[in-house]
């Protein structure tokens, strides 16, 4: 169900934009994932268990890892670019992957082959969701980015992870508040809950 509508949504946007011009009011809306409104009661398991395989094994350590360690040192914002503008950090479109991988093709890499298959079929890659806050929580990424919070503070050392996983972050309210108190950020309920 979820996949269906998201596919439809993605397709519809792509087409819509090709013929309609947008009257955007600038970056002015916060939101949670688009599915939230409908899936309040949907039982959701999160892929914090690495045994849940992603459709493509995406090694964050290769892409974001330090160049000294054999990584490419790509900045987080290169792919998750809306994190500084939007509530949602965003998952890069397949086209972004192909931006590099149409040229960068490690010989015989099955993963890049799979990526190319998705691209050729013009299908989105169904990544497993690793991080999710509850539906009644509003988490504005851009506020945290603009306050200088490093991505790693919540997401751990992603640049060292072969398979992304939640590390030491219970994503509980207490955990959020510990940091908010330390940083003298607001502790008002309606900052996150409305």
């Amino acid at each position: 169900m979820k996949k269906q509508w998201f596919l439809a949504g993605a397709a519809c946007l792509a087409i819509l934009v090709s013929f309609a011009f947008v009257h955007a009011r600038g970056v002015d809306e916060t939101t949670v994932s688009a599915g939230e409104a409908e899936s309040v009661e949907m039982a959701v398991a999160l892929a914090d268990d690495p045994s849940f395989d992603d459709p493509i094994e995406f090694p964050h350590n290769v892409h974001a890892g330090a160049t000294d360690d054999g990584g490419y040192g790509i900045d987080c914002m290169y792919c998750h670019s809306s994190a500084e503008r939007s509530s949602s950090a965003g998952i890069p479109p397949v086209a972004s992957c192909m931006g590099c991988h149409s040229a960068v093709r490690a010989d015989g890499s099955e993963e890049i082959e799979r990526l190319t298959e998705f691209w050729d079929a013009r299908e989105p890659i169904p990544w497993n969701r690793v991080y999710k806050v509850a539906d009644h929580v509003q988490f504005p990424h851009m506020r945290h980015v603009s306050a200088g919070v490093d991505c790693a503070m919540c997401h751990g050392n992603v640049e060292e992870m072969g398979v992304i996983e939640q590390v030491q972050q219970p994503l509980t309210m207490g955990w959020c508040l510990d940091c908010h108190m330390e940083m003298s950020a607001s502790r008002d309920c309606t900052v996150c809950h409305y």
Partner: protein
Amino acid sequence: MSDGMKRRDFLKVLGVTGAGAGLVGCSTDNVEKLMPYVTAPEDITPGVATWYASACGECPAGCGVWVKTQEGRAIKVEGNPNHPVSGGALCARGHSGLQALYNPDRLESPMRRNGDGHEAISWEEAEEMLASGLRDAGSGTAFLTGRTGPTLSVLMDELVGELGGRRVEYEALSEAPLREASRIAFGRDEIPAFDLESADLILSFGADFLETWLSPVEHNRGFARSTGVQADGSKARFVFLGARLSLTGMNADDWYPVRPGSEGVVALALAGALVDRGGDAGPYASLVQEYDLSAAAEAADVPVSSLETLVDLLDEAESPLILGPGVAGQHRNATAANLAALVLNAVSGAVGTTLHFDRAMTGAASSSYGDLATLISDMEGGAVSALVVRGTNPAFSLPSGSGFREAMENVGFSVALATQMDETAVLADLVLPEGHYLESWGDSNPRPGVWAVQQPVMQPVPHFDSRGTGDILLSLARNLGVETDAETFHDYLRNRWSDRHSEAGQPGGGFEAFWRQVLREGLAQFPADAVGEVELQSPDRALSFDLPEMDGEDDGLNLIVYPSSRLGDGRGANRPWLQELPDPVSKIAWHSWVEVHPDTAAEMGIRKGDIVRLETPHGEVQAPVWTYGGVRRDTVAIAMGSGHENYGRYADGKGVNAMRLLPAVEEAVSGALVHLVTRVQIEPTGRHRRLATIEGSDQTRDRAIVPAVQVDDLRAGDLGDHEPRPRTELRGGGGFIPVPSDAEPESFPHEGSRYGDYDPAENRRWAMAIDLDKCTGCSACITACQSENNVANVGEDQLLMGRDLHWIRMERYVETLDAEEPGPVDIRFLPMICQHCGNAPCEPVCPVYAAYHTPDGLNGQIYNRCVGTRYCANNCPYKVRVFNWFGFSDVPEPLNWQYNPDVTVRAEGVMEKCSFCVQRIRTVENRASTEGRDVRDGEVVPACQQSCPAEAIVFGDARDPESRLSQVSRDGRTYRVMDHLINTQPAVNYLRKVTFHPVTDIHV
């Protein structure tokens, strides 16, 4: 359980079992997926809304809209501030367009008649069937359409022309008599614009211009600007003449309960009296002299002295404006009545001042029922072999006597283009699911030179295999071998716009740049033909201005069948937002009611809620009585739009169809269907029902809920006794702490108060001001709030138990109302929302701190904390907290698509209430923070303020003395509801209504 297991142990076991169940459910299939775009659309940032300009398709007024979409779904409709009609606001029906887009009863595929029902077929089959059916019918083809956009009309007419057939337009709410009267009076075959904003005296002979008449949003704005008191104490006066006070009438300063049908005589007599005082009636001078005030008073059943008062008012007014009878008052002499009103406009100098032809309402509906009646008789006679119906539902909206249903059965091949089944489509051989206006191309031309594009704001909702009407017609054209210059309706529309752009001399450069600009702005202004001086012309046909003939026994009551301000002619009936919106007049939702004067009801031994049988020579219906002092004793009134049989789950069986009481009679001159045409007999059935109303009482009983001030006192600076009085403490056995204060919102919090003790220097206090002299009670804010805040509907049964979930309650109090004599009418509206009290009684009683005070002055409600004790609601003196008893947010797919992802969808067992649109506040704060600046005054606009056509609401920071909110609130009229009694220190400042008549001074 007491000895075997303790409660806590039981809960522990339950917890473990719950966790186990959770583990069992844990498999890779259940992992939530993140689906990226394949190629990201350039102008979309995930999580950030994208807005598209389009045009509202709910009524012919043609408001321009902005539609908020997120991740490809439309989630809110707002007025386009650049558009001259909507001016940024919208009405309840406009907002509810979303519920038509996502309506679960929409057609899923084309359907073909199969026996008594319909079966689904493919589009290929359907198009083949359509083309061959119309090809065979040829010149026997007839298109029957509602008001259609200009470009779609061109295409339709082109097609009909090729077939040799004809097209008939029919709208149930038509101003044909006004248009014909305008042609007779001024030689202009069009509907003029009524500039309420520039008027200082408004006379309405029954036109419900704030509800359904011509252009309600625009009229609300103009009306509030002129009748809302100005800084210098000036204020336009509004006199309503009619047998029934509509919502519009409730906003009047004076009510003349004239006999229904007497408008023409009264208007001419007033014009005659003005001519005596030097007015110029041109070729009508001798006509108006035939009507004197005493005869008119006799006809209208009002004292002659009251009409003399009116003459004085008209004589003194600098820019008066007179509005005609409107749809509910269309009787057998309706054109004459409209003509009389136009003559009165001319005599009193309104033409060119407040009545304009250069802004004529080119989009307004003025179709004639006469044309449809001819079509129906041709259908009966077999002269029509194929019928295509689109955008109108005559099987529902016409009186039974029209014979439309039978005639449609007699047509060999009938086709309906509709978004969902309705009473007409269900009779058709072929039903084609057409796209909703938010997912198809179109345009509108509401004023000369003003053109708006109706742009699809999203791809068609995937649950329904619909196609845009224009595209269906173009495909038909191809199948019929008719040449057009476009493959898609989008191209067709662009071509017509390109032509128009060239004709206008290519404003804005090349067409591509121009078109892009149009799509961004939503509209284009082309030069319009200048209208020279408009003068009265000699009438070219004879008209009778006398009281119209009425059917039925002489001892019956006059029957008024009026358009519903919520459901219109009935097309809004399958939307829960509109069905559950309490009617602004009666406060009843979901079902029909008959308005009967209390004295008339008492004479008949009828009480409120008694179900009566209404019988006219043309039909009968049964409905409960709502006793209403705003209707004449010899008249009863009932709304159109309810009583559907085949219109979907929210409409069917709700209320009765009042059109069943009327004959299918056209007015001889304009061809309009007459509404005020028959008397009715009322008989109790002996049955009774509870009315589904949100109203507790219509009396304030001298409590300071909606105080008013007389305009003379206001001008003299006499605002009554407003010295702070000693406070009454509520404390007793606990509760919030009343503290001594001067009760100013900006002085919050007070030393010694336990709650919300935040530093004023560091924090804002969000507050609102609502000008009750501007608020017209139209209730657009309620639907806007529902749309913005995911406010659920509960249905009729739950509403009867008082479980409605609206965050705004439009309270309506009757102060002065007399249907016997002309005189002042004083009905006060008060939009009651959470007052965000500085000293809130709800907060200390919450055992889990779900209700608490935020540093910025909001009365927070944290849904995930709430355990549903409902103590807060019990302790709220304003009764603005509502409780979700049964998971009302679970709605059928895809109605849930309209939910705003920025706002939590509240679950069962949770208390909720107005949040001052906290999500909008946080959005603005987030934006300001990322841009490294402060929030600007006026940047946060709650949904109610955004939508208010009367511009009555201002929101802002009460601690900033320069904010517009502070400036507006520094007015002698400002008060806070019951604050002086219970020291709640609300953040909502109401500005008192201003009246022309003396009012009781109530301490506030």
